[in-house]
């Protein structure tokens, strides 16, 4: 951020989570949420924005992520150091409970934060890569709606290489 903008008063947005908790964030953080950036660019952003799909617990994490990324990118450090720093931060940031990870992924999709969406999807993919089908069903809370006959038929007719 340049010094001239620092002198002027920073624009602040209030984000309200699903459970009614209000978070105060600076513009540099808010614009990382693509949904909000669109509002700002379209001049439709009111200082108070309700986010109906995100709980306070998840929104706090999302804001922490965006804050760190905003600070690192504007910190004036060289690109390679910033890259390294973000990598370490991202790795630690992904070290959370699986359910939180799923919620972060869903929130990143809803708030349209591309880098966080990519990061959570990559992490989830590497988590389920070696798991059994039963473990994955449990993790994503989905039920097997194939009947035994259906599953057998589909598996037989559309077999793939790399079994």
């Amino acid at each position, binding site marked *: 951020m340049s010094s001239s903008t620092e002198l002027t008063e920073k624009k602040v947005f209030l984000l309200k989570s699903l459970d009614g908790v209000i978070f105060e964030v600076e513009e540099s953080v808010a614009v990382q949420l693509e949904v909000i950036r669109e509002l700002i660019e379209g001049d439709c952003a009111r200082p108070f924005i309700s986010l109906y799909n995100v709980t306070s617990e998840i929104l706090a994490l999302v804001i922490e992520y965006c804050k760190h990324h905003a600070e690192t990118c504007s910190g004036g450090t060289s690109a390679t150091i910033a890259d390294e720093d973000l990598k370490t931060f991202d790795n630690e940031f992904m070290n959370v409970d699986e*359910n939180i990870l*799923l*919620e972060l*992924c*869903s929130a990143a*999709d809803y708030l349209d934060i591309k880098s966080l*969406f990519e990061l959570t*999807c*990559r992490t*989830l*993919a590497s988590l*389920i*890569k*070696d798991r*059994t*089908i039963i473990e*994955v*069903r449990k993790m*994503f*809370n*989905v*039920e*097997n*709606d*194939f009947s035994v006959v259906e*599953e057998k038929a*589909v*598996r037989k007719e*559309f*077999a*793939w*290489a*790399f*079994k």
Partner: protein
Amino acid sequence: MNTKSVDGKGASLLKLVEERIQREVEHERKKQQESQVIIPYLPKDCISKILVLLPLESLQKLRFVCKAWYEIVNSLVFIDAHLQGSDTGLIFLAPVLKGRPFSSDFKISDPLVKPNTFSVESKVLHMQSVPICHWPCIDPSSLFYINFMEIKDGKCTIKEYNETCIGKIRATCNGLILLDNRMKKEGLVVMNPVTQDLLRIPLGTQSSPHHESYGLVYCHCSSNYEVVHLFQDESQYIGCEIINIGSRSWRVMDGPSFGLFGWLGYEPVFAIGALHWLPLINHNDYIVSLQVDNEKFKKIPLPKSGEIHDRIIAMSGFLGFVTHHEDMNRIDVWILTGLGCEVWEKLYTIRMDCTKNMVPLYCSRINGEIIFKKKDYDLYAYDCALQIMRKVELKKGCFPFNGCYLPHVNSLVSWRIPAKR
């Protein structure tokens, strides 16, 4: 609550009830909290994005999690996203009999190959409803495994599809391969080696193997995959015929102008909406291109004369021309970004001690490395971003340098559901 008027016994009872109620409320709240945590609902887009990042081995298992996931994996959007995320490698044939003692002819149903191996010929015969007792004998020395080689971080990995065939791989495109159908000399087979889906293509104009060339292309206009066949007759005239995959007959069309081709031995490259050939063994001053949309041949001049080790390759959607400089330590990479103005642009200059005998094979789509073979036993990978050439670690004998190999991506693409662009 007023407990002053109640005696000692009653008070303790009341306390017990109160505690119990509190415990129940607490329990209910916890349960509610838990049920809230357990259902982080992920929309379809998220699931699709996660699944597209999985290696094929995992995807082939996890697509059966539920019907919704299965449908995601079968959707056009997913198949296209998966294709875009897949990296190029080489598909090649490895002899089944390698290292085995010679045995006499056997039937393709014989257990010579590894168990659970998919046989292209068996499937073809099966599709034609030929009874097993009438299946022809196959010389085991002509039977090959279909394998895939991937190069990443200077190392090569071989993946086995567990599939056998007897025909040569003639062409590849977006994960589909074109194979000779050697069953009773019946033309060709198009196949996706990942999904094991295959289709017979009728025989076109017959020609001797050294005087014809096949290409597999995707036509945006018709949203269809097509096979292009060039063939040379006795009078040296080159004819051209095209068949839409799924249709029954070949369309004969105007071939390239007489004299443009001197040799049909270089496999064509599909890029920027056209199929391109180097038309001579050596000293190529131009390439011959067939535009897929209007089916017209075109002669495109090269920025410099192409010598015996120079090749054209597909490079991140464009056409690349990799050519050796007169200095023995320099290779130039030119690209053509479109067919409109046809101006080649020099993209990279590769410098290394000795570039002699380095033949470019393909450019990987994801990590942007150009793979070269040197003589008939070494592979090199050039990282275009870092400008580093390094030798690929190769297990001896794992890759047939003198055999048949073509650039290929593993995809779920099908001619039945054409990739959306």
